């Protein structure tokens, strides 16, 4: 059984997945941040691979990506940092990024290396259903990686079901039609989450985009298996000398 599936079996509710950008705030802080997340109650880690043109991201994650790139982060470097990380980190880790750098690394070589270092799954928002089914999905499967699709409030019901079928690990419910870090009214979101809940999907569902504190985490967890926090966490550790301390304070405030 995959590490992600296992995690949801052990703890199906109030699952907290935290996004952090590799190489941010400092090139060598990647593992420190991941460890601090594990030690302070995160259940999963979504590790962002910085990209020059992150289309689906708002200003906070764009900035963290730009800083990480300026720090010298690359996919090559990231795999170096992740080599041996399973000695310390036992919670599931998902790599999130965009197709271009992955294609440049070589899609198959990338999947092979990710699996080898102990990564559990991938989120590639600009790899859509058709391309996944036609070419890339088989490679992801070959290396035993989970692949997580996104759905939004605009996604039709039959499409949600298709994307649920193609996904493994969990399904990523984007809370509102927006880039990351956007503050849209959360009440409207609740209706959509109720609708998702009623579909009886095969995968667990985590809600992302706009989850930023205890209140929004609790609200999302009411209807789904949990939530993903990104921009709010990046803001919390940005410019901090002591990322462990900043991570601890942030997670404590969300999980209190």
């Amino acid at each position, binding site marked *: 059984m995959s590490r992600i599936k296992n995690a949801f079996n052990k703890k199906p509710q109030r699952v907290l997945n935290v996004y952090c950008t590799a190489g941010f705030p400092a090139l060598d802080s990647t593992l420190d941040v991941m460890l601090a997340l594990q030690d302070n109650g995160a259940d999963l880690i979504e590790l962002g691979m910085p990209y*020059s*043109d992150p289309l689906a991201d708002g200003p906070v994650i764009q900035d963290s990506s730009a800083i990480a790139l300026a720090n010298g982060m690359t996919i090559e470097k990231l795999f170096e940092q992740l080599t041996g990380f399973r000695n310390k980190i036992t919670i599931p880790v998902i790599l999130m990024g965009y*197709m*271009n750098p992955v294609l*440049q690394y070589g899609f198959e070589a990338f999947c092979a290396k990710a699996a080898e270092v102990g990564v559990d799954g991938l989120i590639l928002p600009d790899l859509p259903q058709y*391309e996944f089914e036609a070419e890339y999905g088989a490679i992801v499967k070959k290396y035993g990686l989970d692949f997580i699709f996104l*759905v939004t409030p605009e996604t039709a019901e039959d499409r949600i079901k298709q994307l649920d079928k193609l996904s493994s690990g969990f399904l990523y419910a*984007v809370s509102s039609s*927006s*880039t990351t870090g956007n503050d849209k009214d959360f009440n409207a979101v609740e209706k959509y989450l109720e609708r998702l809940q009623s579909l009886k999907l095969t995968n667990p569902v985590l809600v992302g985009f706009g989850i930023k504190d205890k209140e929004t985490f609790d609200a999302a967890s009411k209807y789904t298996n949990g939530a993903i926090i990104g921009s709010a966490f990046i803001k919390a550790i940005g410019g901090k000398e002591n990322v462990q301390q900043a991570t601890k304070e942030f997670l404590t405030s969300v999980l209190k």
Partner: protein
Amino acid sequence: MGQETFQQPNEHGYYGKFGGAFIPEMLHRNVEELRTKYLEIINEPSFKEEYAYLLKDYVGRPSPLYLAERLSEKLGTNIYLKREDLNHTGAHKINNAIGQVLLAQRLGKKRIIAETGAGQHGVATATVCALKGLECIVYMGEKDIERQAPNVARMKMLGATVVPATSGSKTLKDATNEAIRDWINNPVDTHYVIGSVVGPHPYPDMVARFQSIISEEIRKQLKEKTGSELPTHVVACVGGGSNAAGAFFHFLDELSVQLVAVEAAGHGIDSGMSAVATKLGTVGVLHGSKNLVMQTADGQVVEPHSISAGLDYPGIGPLHAHLYESGRGKFIYATDDEAVEAAFELTKLEGIIPALESSHALAGLKQLNLTKKDIVVVCLSGRGDKDMSTYMKYVK
């Protein structure tokens, strides 16, 4: 898949191995709506009628095909200029802007967004939005806002909101990112008018169709002037590639016609300051399609350079990537200096001040070993008014 024509992509938007729709789910609804409806809408009689009417009475089409006699004499060949510079708003961009805004209206959209480099596409879109009473927001790189000030003023006067793109290289690529992000955040009432043959399927095909009026007219006009519809060469500059796609379109499957695309080499192809996506790029995904992308070994998109804001783009439309790889198109390049020199030459010989972008196509002529037997059509994609501050730096 067996592609019999270069004109159209397959049903998934592929020209050979380039194209497709690499978009996040947040854009799916909008792009899918377009994909399933664009052909039906643009083939409706009422659409065709309104489009043709506006091209004629509003834009001033057909644009003339002008035999540039003095330039022809100097280069020892026959040069015909397709005068897209004489269109209302001063470039070919209006052909596409009208088409897409009419389409957006029929899709019930109330809000129009666009990206722009040189500002020509932004001006064209703002113009059609003024005509139709639609809200218009144009994203433009901060660097381009500085170097294309006259077009920024025009867009504002036309009632558009010009939003500076301050991320990355602060040019066309980043303006496009910002426009896409806007579309993600406004998934219901907004249409994104992409200005070139780039973006996810169906944009490259849709924009190529709207620009194909250029070669449709060239065939007729050339027949009248020379007795033959087919030139020996068609030459156009390529940023994303829309004026080239339009000028090539009805010649794509006429294999006797050499299609020449001229890219911007900036300070020189090996200078690290250029925008020659075919030769410096590798297969990648940029702005929703697989094309040739200038990038680092780590897959980060590099900041291109060209003196002309409209060619300052690190990718190339999938149709052109395919024309390049298949050998159907001849891809050459011209530097900043060569383009400026060609602009002054045309101005002195013919009394026509070309846009900096179009000047690259003119500069390319010198590399073609043309003879008296050749009939060469150059797409003069735009006029040089917007570039006067750059040109003035070269006046001694």
